[in-house]
């Protein structure tokens, strides 16, 4: 398997992967590749002068999902290496097959997200209403969410029904999801927080909840509300990316 076939496979299987390419340096080195597997293994054709340093940098970039070019000194002079990381598309889980959910699924797909819809009510979560989602899951949110969520998952809880919303919010807040939002007015949200407190959910966990959900853009229609939710999710994603980037030493920062 060559490097391109491996990239194609990683994208298809939604596996993380990093590929380093020599883009500036001695003519004979140009285009040489080093592939870094999620397991920490590396393989390829970069000069032995470079492979260890490239491997280390690529693993660092892979951990934060960043791509960029770095300069590395070698006995042959300064060499520039471009490191590209392939990370699986982020996942949005929509809980509740509501009208806002339909618009939110469409917007998230345009932005390249994978989208799952979770709703035990079969009349709401139909393929006709949700042609864009990658998976329709007819189950109780608290039963399936813990198995689906990773640190690259955002959860939008939209049912407006406490017997579905509350378990979903609790499961999502206790998961590694990077974003959890729940629909409802300030009043609805205050009542929700009271119920969750009575169930013993600690304040620092409740503080993770984005509610009322969405950026304040004066949204009125379901489609505008969906836009405000997606905007808030993207804003949170950017904030975390900046924070992760700051953990990489400046001289090798992407």
């Amino acid at each position: 398997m060559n490097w391109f076939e491996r990239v194609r496979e990683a994208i298809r299987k939604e596996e993380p992967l990093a590929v380093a390419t020599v883009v500036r340096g001695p003519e004979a080195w140009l285009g040489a590749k080093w592939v870094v597997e999620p397991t920490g293994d590396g393989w390829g054709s970069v000069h032995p002068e470079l492979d260890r340093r490239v491997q280390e940098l690529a693993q660092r970039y892979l951990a934060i999902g960043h791509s960029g070019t770095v300069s590395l000194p070698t006995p042959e002079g300064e060499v520039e290496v471009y490191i590209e990381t392939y990370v699986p598309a982020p996942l949005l889980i929509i809980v509740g097959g509501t009208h806002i959910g339909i618009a939110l699924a469409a917007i998230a797909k345009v932005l390249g997200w994978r989208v799952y819809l979770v709703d035990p009510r079969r009349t709401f979560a139909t393929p006709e209403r949700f042609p864009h989602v990658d998976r329709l899951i007819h189950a109780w949110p608290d039963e399936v969410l813990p198995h689906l969520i990773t640190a690259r998952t955002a959860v939008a809880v939209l049912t407006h029904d406490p017997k579905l919303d509350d378990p979903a919010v609790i499961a999502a807040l206790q998961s590694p999801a990077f974003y959890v939002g729940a629909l409802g007015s300030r009043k609805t949200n205050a009542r929700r927080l009271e119920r969750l407190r009575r169930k013993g959910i600690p304040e620092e966990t409740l503080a993770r909840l984005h509610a009322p959900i969405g950026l304040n853009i004066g949204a009125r229609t379901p489609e505008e509300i969906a836009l405000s939710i997606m905007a808030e999710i993207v804003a949170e994603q950017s904030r975390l990316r900046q924070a992760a980037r700051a953990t990489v030493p400046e001289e090798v920062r992407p």
Partner: protein
Amino acid sequence: MREVLEAIERWKGRGEQVALATVVKVIGSAPRDVGAKMAVSSGGEMAGSVSGGCVEGAVFEIAQEVLRTGRPRLVRFGISDEMAWDVGLACGGTIEVFVEPLP
């Protein structure tokens, strides 16, 4: 890469050679970020983009040359470039694009 994969598979399926152009560095503001990709086939088709449309024509020509020679090239586009009159980026940024033949 996702956005050009389908086209690449189609061209390779027809037995064509493919060159891949990648934005590897952005200085200042540019329409597309590091990692943006454009693929070019030996049959003269293209997919994807590396800018907002300002340098794609030039990249296409370079990709054809890379396919002929088999040798990758790093190309810089921007206001400081002597090609600025022809292919300058409207937003005033500088980008470096690496063009290589796919195996």
